[in-house]
């Protein structure tokens, strides 16, 4: 660990905390339909869109209608992506003549992008045409993020409203989130990325003549070595910057290239890396301020942001420390930090990012449900790699995905308030609303679906040598980590991976597809039911016995509840994966 590394990390969190309030205030204005400076351009667009699609913007929706509309819209977008993937050979903007995507992979990918997961079981540069990337995938980066935002706003309305049956209009929330928030920031961000070297073109792949031709020796089918001479390099091109901007801002994370944000064309400089980091947390941090403003208790928003920051810090500290450690199995290799190198565990990391920026990125991308990577988590040290895994297993509520992080966190808030109520022996209240058995049931349903999917699927996979285990790249406890990470990432809609696992098989494509689908939509339903129920409640006046949700005590309670729920659920699985691997690594074992 170095002073410079910590300065970068400190600057990052300082900027996020500074941006939270202005960003949150802007989002409050957007969703409360108050005036903003973009109105002269966007209001006519908004009205035109409603007229063309038959949306009545003044119509209010109950939670059931809000959920149903969201599901139907998601289904329509899923179908579009599946069709584009299957027909890409017949469609324009396919200079490499890439074939139609196989049905299981196309379905997995369509679910993956619809659910804001962006799990990628394919190598994009050899699988997806430019049109598929633009029309089939980048569109989902907007839609799924806007859906997440809309759901978070609906949940906030559920808390803020009193004795009402409705949560707002899904189409209006979706449209305003897209036009006022995601699109304008993406345009500016994309151009900033291009200025630093992120590519943006529709050219065919470039063939470059190598400066030094390479002689590659491989083993042929007959077991004899074959030497081939490679004289050229194929350089993949594409409309990257436009997709990169919304991929980060919408916490989607699906890379234009296989190497994701490690690829020099996606993330060429330390500055692009820093901007990408900021864009992951920008909206989730802002939403805590939006929450505080819309429910009339700004300090409640700050208390939640404080809990998030605390959990973020523990993650980044552990990851940065672990990745700075030398691998004890390597000899004659200088792994010490010095003025001319960062040292540490450099396998799967880029020199321009080193250890600090890689560890920060891994922590941030999994705190949020982003899943973009600038280093390969599979090659992290056991404890360093456990940080992203644990972040996902906690439910991606540390800042969290766009919208999804906040509503996930609010479910934990309800549970925390309930536990506080039990401790003092009175009916728990949350911002003036009694938390009753139906509310706790819905919150617990939300919390239980998650581990059930992850641990259930991982257990089944581990028991199937031909389907599950044959895809592993690493063996021993690390193999279990690969499987656990895959189902955690899919269910949590993260999308990052221990990428050694070959997930492009029928078993993984379908089972991970189900995990992503259920992990998104089946968790949204109890969440909206809870919101709908809260909206209908009366406000009870605050008394001396009310547990305040604006104090450091609340922040500590909330953090503890998150950690205890996570630890009770997942510690046994983690002890057989990364923790065992850590012990075996230092005992000198290899697999």
């Amino acid at each position, binding site marked *: 660990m170095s002073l410079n590394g910590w300065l970068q990390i400190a600057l990052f969190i300082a900027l996020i905390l500074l941006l939270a309030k202005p960003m949150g205030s802007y989002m409050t204005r957007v969703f409360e339909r108050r005036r903003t400076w973009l109105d002269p351009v966007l209001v006519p667009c908004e009205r035109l869109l409603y007229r063309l699609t038959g949306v009545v913007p003044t119509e209010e929706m109950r939670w059931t209608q809000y959920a149903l509309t969201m599901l139907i*819209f998601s289904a329509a977008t899923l179908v579009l992506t599946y069709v584009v993937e299957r027909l890409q050979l017949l469609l324009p903007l396919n200079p490499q003549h890439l074939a139609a995507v196989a049905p299981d992979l196309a379905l997995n990918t369509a679910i993956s992008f619809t659910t804001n997961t962006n799990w990628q079981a394919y190598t994009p540069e050899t699988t997806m045409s430019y049109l598929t990337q633009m*029309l089939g995938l980048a569109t989902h980066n907007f839609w799924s993020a806007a859906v997440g935002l809309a759901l978070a706003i609906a949940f906030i309305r559920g808390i803020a409203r009193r004795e009402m049956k409705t949560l707002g209009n899904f189409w209006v929330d979706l449209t305003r989130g897209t036009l006022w928030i995601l699109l304008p920031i993406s345009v500016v961000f994309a*151009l900033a990325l291009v200025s630093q*070297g992120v590519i943006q073109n529709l050219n065919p792949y470039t063939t470059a003549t190598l400066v030094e031709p*390479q002689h590659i020796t491989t083993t042929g089918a007959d077991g004899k070595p074959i030497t081939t001479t490679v004289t050229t390099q194929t350089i993949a091109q594409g409309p990257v910057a436009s997709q990169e901007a919304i991929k980060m801002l919408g916490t989607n994370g699906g890379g234009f290239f296989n190497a994701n944000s490690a690829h020099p064309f996606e993330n060429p400089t330390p500055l692009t890396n820093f901007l990408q980091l900021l864009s992951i947390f920008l909206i989730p941090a802002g939403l805590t301020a939006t929450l505080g403003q819309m429910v009339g208790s700004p300090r409640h928003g700050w208390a939640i942001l404080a809990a998030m920051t605390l959990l973020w810090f523990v993650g980044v500290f552990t990851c940065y420390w672990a990745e700075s450690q030398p691998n004890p199995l390597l000899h004659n290799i200088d792994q010490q930090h010095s003025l001319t190198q960062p040292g540490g565990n450099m396998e799967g990391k*880029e*020199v321009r990012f080193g250890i600090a920026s*890689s560890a920060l990125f891994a922590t941030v991308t999994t705190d949020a449900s982003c899943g973009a990577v600038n280093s390969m988590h599979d090659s992290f040290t056991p404890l360093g790699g456990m940080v992203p895994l644990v972040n996902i297993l906690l439910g991606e509520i540390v800042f969290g995905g766009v919208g999804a992080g906040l509503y996930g966190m609010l479910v934990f808030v309800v549970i925390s308030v309930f536990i506080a109520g039990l401790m003092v022996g009175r009916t728990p209240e949350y911002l003036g609303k009694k938390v009753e058995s139906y509310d706790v049931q819905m919150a617990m349903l939300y919390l239980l679906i998650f581990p059930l999917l992850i641990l259930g699927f991982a257990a089944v996979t581990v028991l199937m040598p031909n389907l599950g285990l044959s895809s592993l790249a690493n063996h021993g406890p690390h193999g279990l980590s690969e499987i656990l990470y895959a189902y955690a990432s899919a269910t949590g809609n993260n999308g990052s991976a221990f990428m050694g696992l070959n997930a492009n098989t029928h078993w993984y494509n379908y089972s991970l597809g189900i995990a992503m689908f259920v992990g998104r939509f089946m968790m949204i339903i109890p969440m909206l039911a809870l919101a709908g129920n809260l909206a209908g409640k009366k406000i009870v006046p605050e008394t001396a016995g009310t547990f305040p949700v604006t104090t450091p005590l609340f922040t500590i309670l909330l953090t503890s509840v998150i950690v205890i729920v996570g630890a009770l659920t997942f510690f046994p699985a983690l002890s057989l994966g990364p923790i065992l691997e850590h012990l075996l690594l230092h005992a000198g074992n290899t697999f």
Partner: protein
Amino acid sequence: MKKTIITATLYTLITAILLGIGYPLAITGLAHIFFPKQADGELITRNGAVIGSHLIGQSFTGTTYFHSRPSAAGTGYDAGSSSGSNLAPTSKSLIDRTTASTVTEQTGTAPVPVDLVTASASGLDPDITPAAALYQIPRIARERHLSEPALTALVAAHTTPRQFGLLGEPRVNVLDLNLALDNLPTH
């Protein structure tokens, strides 16, 4: 229900054209007006032919060049198939591979800088650390009959410091360094 399905379908199609066609094409247009070189990948041409990109690494394994890092992209630095090795720290393949690389790279008794024997995340890392570049100077000086101070100066001239003195890590672009090396007068 039926009305919602119609609205959802229309909404999907209209916003797909806006966000999936209009937005990326607008950015492509603006990028080519303001940053044409960057938008096309900062390609390097020599005598009219493309010989690489400033941003994308290439394999250098000969004794007369600064070596780049090992790569897991295709057969090495295949920029049509980016990838890391994804090997775990306890992987026997990883230990065997780095041990073999260490034997190749080591000059004298000093240990080899770690980035020179580990594969990058993308398999296309254009850079090595200043430590890895300085480490290779004695070999290159010997093979090319150049003086070590001249090479140290060359490496220093091609070392990119942290951005704004703060972000990222100091680094040396291997392709740029080797192209400059080919242009150095021998004595």
